[in-house]
């Protein structure tokens, strides 16, 4: 029968062993794979400013990006290719709440420069390699 000491060794040994593997894989991801898959070299000043606007207004409080955030408003990972620059800028610069089918967005009334920066951020996200996310709908199921 397992003794308390053996149980302690299992806990401490397992924790240290798997922590080391996790740290090793994280190091590889952070220093090599993620910068490559996200085209980190294409993060321009406009992308940085766009990201700052994204964070400052807590867009993730309603939308998701990279599938992360809230589920009240559309996924925006591929919004640049799905909706295009003009549509995005119209939404961001609107002075009245944008409300497709009645669900309201905060009216941010951004300047054209700010909207351009957010578009630059979306364009950069649009190009990321996300292992197949978001998935393409099944053509056989489409109406």
């Amino acid at each position, binding site marked *: 029968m397992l003794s308390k000491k053996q*149980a302690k060794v299992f806990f401490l040994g397992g924790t240290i062993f798997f922590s080391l593997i996790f740290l090793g894989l994280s190091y590889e991801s952070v220093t090599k794979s993620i*910068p490559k898959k996200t085209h980190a070299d294409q993060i321009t000043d406009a992308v940085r400013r766009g990201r700052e606007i994204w964070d400052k207004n807590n867009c993730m409080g309603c939308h998701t990006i*990279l*599938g*992360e955030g809230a*589920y009240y*408003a*559309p996924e925006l990972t591929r919004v640049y290719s799905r909706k295009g620059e003009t549509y995005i800028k119209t939404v961001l610069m609107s002075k009245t709440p944008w409300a497709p089918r009645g669900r309201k967005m905060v009216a941010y009334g951004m300047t054209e420069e700010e909207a351009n920066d957010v578009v630059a951020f979306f364009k950069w996200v649009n190009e990321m390699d996300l292992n197949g996310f978001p998935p393409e709908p099944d053509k056989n199921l489409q109406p």
Partner: protein
Amino acid sequence: MKYKSQRVAYWFFALSMLLIILQITYGFIMAFAHYGMDGLHNWIPFNAARTTHINLLVVWLLSGFMGAAYYIIPEEAQRELVSVKWAYIQLISFAIVGVVAVIGFHFNWWEGRKFLEIPRPLDYLVVVNVLLFLGLILATLYKGKTQTTTAMVLAMGLVFAALLYLPGMIFFDNQALDSFFRWWVVHLWVEGVWELIMGGILAFLLIKLTGVDREVIEKWLYVIVGLTFLSGILGTGHHYYYIGTPKYWLVIGGIFSAMEPLAFLGMALFAIHMYRKGGRNHPNKIALSWTLGTAIVSFAGAGLLGLAHTLPQVNLYTHGTLVTAMHGHLAFWGAYGMLVFAMISYAMPLMTGRKVYEQTSNIYAFWLAVIGMLGMTTAFAAAGVAQVYLERRVGLDFMVAQQEIEVHFLVLILCATLFTTGVLIFVYNFIKYGRPTEEAMASGDEFEAVQPAAA
């Protein structure tokens, strides 16, 4: 209650009770908005309600954990807290930081990073506050007569929870890297070190309520927290499937996430087995119900419903949908909400000397809250699965799909009303217990309320 300083816990529990009511209020605002009734949009837009809802969750749970630690550590270490005054200072500063953060969310003062929205200046105050809390706990433990495994596991959980807050404060201009380290905090908290806290509190409650030998309970505690880390650390990989991360996480995350329910299953079997094995007929039956309840519901919510969408092939479709909300609600409630309720149910009679636990209303509180939350989870599941099919599989526009699933939010609101009724009865009973009394404290172990009926 053996030590006078344990009464500090009362105020942390009271803060917890206040904040859960606020959290639920914001949950209703969000549910009504999903149902199409967003009359508060101009004052509390959805992102403010959502951020307040999830941050209040973290704060009321942490407040409950801190209260539990202030109650458990003196008893385990067999000495008074090193400073009651500083514990109260820590409580007040903790409450102030929480209130300022919540008010700030309504004025666009936040960082748009899910679960870590507290703005940077307040982050530093959180760090100072938690350091003060840990200082008090660790110093008490260090100076104590005994350092039990239960106390050490609980303290280790608290220390790692504090350390893991730090990666979330590093700034990255790459959204994917920001997400990568955000999960170091959020995942390694709730599916890692918070489970140490859970294990520690559960072990304490089982020792007290079942009378099973400490050595036996603590041995299994090691096995369970061992399983938690064995699966949970690399299980972080299920957040790294589709955020700009390499493909090896699909394999690693898939395998180790599939093992994560084992730790929760272990927790459930552990609690049930100790309950059956224990010969003690403890009079505080409702504390035992919450204790067994947290172990079992966490297995369902965190273990099974987590597994339901951590397979990479499934997660490709469910990632970023209401399926996550389904898992999240039952997981947080089962593993941590019910745990705090268990601790409060156990500690209140001992602090106040009143036997409110004997009243039938406690049973209503338990079942209404648990059934209400199961109903809410089912509503989220129906909405989430329908969303996945309509939006991700069929390819309907987001809002078209949302309108199709709107009706499930009516069910959600009805079930949330049941849940809220249960929680309100619990809070009402908490108030009825009143404040800690000198009589209860002076009686120590001899106090009538702690005596098993069979003793």
